[in-house]
């Protein structure tokens, strides 16, 4: 009775190590197909009934060597069950070859006529019983007995009359299947035009209770199905072709991809709730440092901060791209920077306001700034997803998770040079020396943020509080490289080799900044100095120096004793044989006193 057990509807597949039935191979038949690999079909018998089976191509050599041939006994350790057009086929994944008695044992009859459609809802015992009754008939062979068999019971468990194949069971051996799945992701229609012609396509991701799979619709299928398929609804899909998944773009768990054309059939199903909204394989943020860059992870966390959106030019496509950084923390205590791209970045400050719980599916891990994440497009990023883990995350946040110690995986320097340093990310000026900053073995700089007051500006630098920079606004200079003045008053740039009558003045000067713990010398460069000096351009200041010294001094006096939130870069610099730790201003933000006050009050109350 091994065959009925293998074929029975609730034997899912191979995960029962204690079930290793012994069967006899009645016949081995090569399968002719238009696919390149040769495959062998087998008839398996338990002495009473027989069923269809298939060998995996890895075992083809056993047939070719004669080890697996008619009448040999096999002990099946690992198998998979598939239903094709009402017939069950056992795919042998692992087996041992036993002895070969040389003839058929018993008079087995086909189980297919007895079981008919094996939909999951059928109770196990019924079809088996009628089959058993049949086989005790003293008929030889298979044919006639089947013709006068008990009426074929065609009970179904789903609303369609077709048996449903789990996505996890899809394989290249069967080309007719129906899956029932939820559309979890739907891409936009893409058009292509190349030497071979042109066309359109769109892709979806489908999820059932066991697995998800990517499917693509081409040409006329796009017109037929694009508007019909809605994300989050459940459909039955049939008439699709399988191919191996392209792992470069495909992040679904299935090793296959489906192609649908205009002859495919898709019907809307009732959402009985058995298929979940989305499966996540959540990685705690604090463990991201062990994840290889380039890998994809699912992350769930609270968005603590949203940066201003920024536009960059993509080095790859040359196009403008918007981006925005989210600071995400979870209950593992980890915190990481996650980048949102495109139009969604422009609205991110509204969409992610009020510290929502957000699920990031298939975010790419990068080693930028230590570790950071890049969010996938579409609805892979879900704000306040409906899942129990999200509720737990929200409870953790409200119960004090917002105040807890944090392990930052993205450093301040890596998260975008101008990112506002949050209150809990700050240190004090005394930490620069106190923590021995700038003394890294690989000469990498340290970054530190604090709120401080500008106590003194050394505006009387030799040559002025600026340097002459190249007039060339393009690469490689971008108005930044130092130029030298020749005897005829022209400015020459060694970087781009241009000589111009004019130069652009950019700020460079030293200053001291102080807080309650210490004072430090720092360097200011043009971008930050401009903010400090209330927007006054170095070129204008340079003119004032000559013409109106009092106004010139007045600008610096105004900036003295002003408060700012600074991010500083602390790095060792080598001059001849000496090395010194130098601190320069990376970013400067005005102090929002009410916001700072609120942060301080919260910190006091948490003490």
């Amino acid at each position: 009775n091994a065959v009925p057990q293998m074929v029975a509807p609730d034997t899912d597949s191979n995960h029962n190590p204690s079930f290793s039935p012994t069967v006899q191979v009645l016949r081995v038949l090569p399968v002719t197909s238009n696919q390149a690999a040769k495959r062998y079909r087998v008839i398996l018998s338990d002495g009473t009934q027989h069923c269809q089976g298939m060998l995996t191509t890895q075992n083809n050599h056993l047939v070719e060597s004669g080890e697996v041939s008619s009448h040999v006994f096999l002990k099946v350790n690992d198998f998979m069950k598939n239903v094709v057009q009402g017939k069950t086929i056992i795919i042998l994944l692992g087996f041992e070859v036993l002895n070969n008695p040389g003839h058929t044992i018993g008079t087995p009859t086909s189980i297919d006529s007895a079981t008919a459609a094996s939909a999951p809802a059928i109770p196990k015992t019924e079809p088996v019983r009628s089959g058993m009754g049949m086989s005790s008939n003293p008929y030889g062979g298979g044919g006639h007995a089947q013709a006068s068999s008990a009426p074929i019971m065609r009970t179904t468990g789903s609303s369609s009359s077709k048996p449903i194949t789990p996505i996890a069971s899809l394989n290249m051996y069967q080309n007719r299947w129906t899956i029932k799945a939820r559309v979890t992701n739907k891409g936009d229609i893409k058009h292509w035009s190349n030497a071979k012609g042109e066309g359109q396509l769109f892709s979806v991701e489908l999820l059932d209770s066991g697995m998800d799979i990517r499917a693509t619709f081409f040409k006329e299928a796009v017109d037929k199905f694009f508007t019909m398929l809605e994300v989050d609804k459940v459909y039955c899909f049939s008439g699709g072709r399988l191919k191996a998944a392209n792992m470069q773009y495909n992040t679904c768990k299935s090793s296959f991809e489906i192609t649908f054309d205009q002859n495919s059939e898709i019907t809307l199903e009732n959402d009985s709730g058995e298929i979940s909204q989305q499966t996540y394989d959540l990685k705690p943020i604090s463990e991201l440092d062990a994840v290889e860059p380039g890998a994809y992870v699912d992350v769930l966390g609270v968005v603590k901060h949203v940066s201003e959106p920024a536009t960059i030019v993509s080095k790859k496509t040359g196009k403008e791209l918007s981006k925005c950084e989210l600071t995400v923390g979870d209950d593992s205590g980890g915190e990481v920077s996650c980048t949102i791209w495109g139009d969604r970045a422009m609205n991110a400050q509204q969409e992610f306001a009020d510290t929502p719980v957000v699920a990031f599916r298939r975010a790419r891990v990068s080693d930028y700034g230590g570790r950071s994440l890049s969010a996938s497009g579409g609805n892979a990023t879900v704000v306040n997803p409906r899942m129990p883990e999200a509720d737990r995350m929200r409870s953790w946040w409200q119960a004090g998770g917002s105040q807890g110690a944090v392990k930052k995986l993205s450093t301040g320097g890596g998260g975008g040079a101008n990112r506002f340093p949050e209150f809990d990310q700050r240190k004090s000026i005394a930490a620069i020396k106190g923590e021995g900053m700038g003394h890294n073995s690989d000469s990498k700089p340290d970054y530190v943020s604090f709120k401080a007051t500008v106590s003194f500006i050394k505006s009387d630098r030799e040559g002025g509080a600026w340097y002459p920079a190249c007039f060339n606004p393009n690469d490689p200079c971008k108005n930044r490289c130092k130029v030298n003045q020749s005897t005829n008053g022209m400015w020459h740039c060694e970087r781009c080799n241009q000589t111009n009558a004019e130069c652009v003045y950019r700020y460079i000067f030293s200053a001291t900044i102080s807080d309650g713990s210490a004072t430090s010398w720092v360097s200011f460069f043009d971008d930050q100095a401009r903010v400090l000096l209330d927007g006054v351009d170095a070129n204008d200041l340079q003119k004032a120096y000559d013409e109106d010294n009092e106004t010139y001094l007045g600008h610096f006096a105004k900036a003295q004793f002003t408060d700012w939130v600074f991010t500083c870069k602390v790095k060792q610099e080598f001059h001849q044989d000496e090395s010194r730790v130098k601190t320069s201003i990376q970013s400067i933000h005005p102090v929002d006193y009410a916001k700072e006050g609120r942060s301080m009050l919260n910190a006091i109350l948490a003490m």
Partner: protein
Amino acid sequence: MSGEGVFPRLNATMLENGMGEGMILSICGAFESTDGQSFTLRTSDGKTLRYAISGDIEFEQGKIVEVMGAKNADNGVQLDAFVARDLGQDFDLDLYNDLITKVISSGRYNDIFIPK
């Protein structure tokens, strides 16, 4: 609690609870209305107090101020107002209220806020 130059910082609730009896006290809030001789102040805890104007006070509707005053049970007012100091438009009254209730009058930091 008061000493030279030190005045208790209260809101309406704290005043109702009997704090600041018989001394000059400071209450922050926003000007609400005036009839020339008295004005009402919406305090940092969202309640309303009526002051008699005793001194040079420039009323401006909605302006956030610190009013120095003292309790007064007569004339239909609750307090006399001596001077009102402008606190600016971006003053966060909620933050201030939390400060005076949760920190200053909590008792935990008396050695910082209460003169000996």
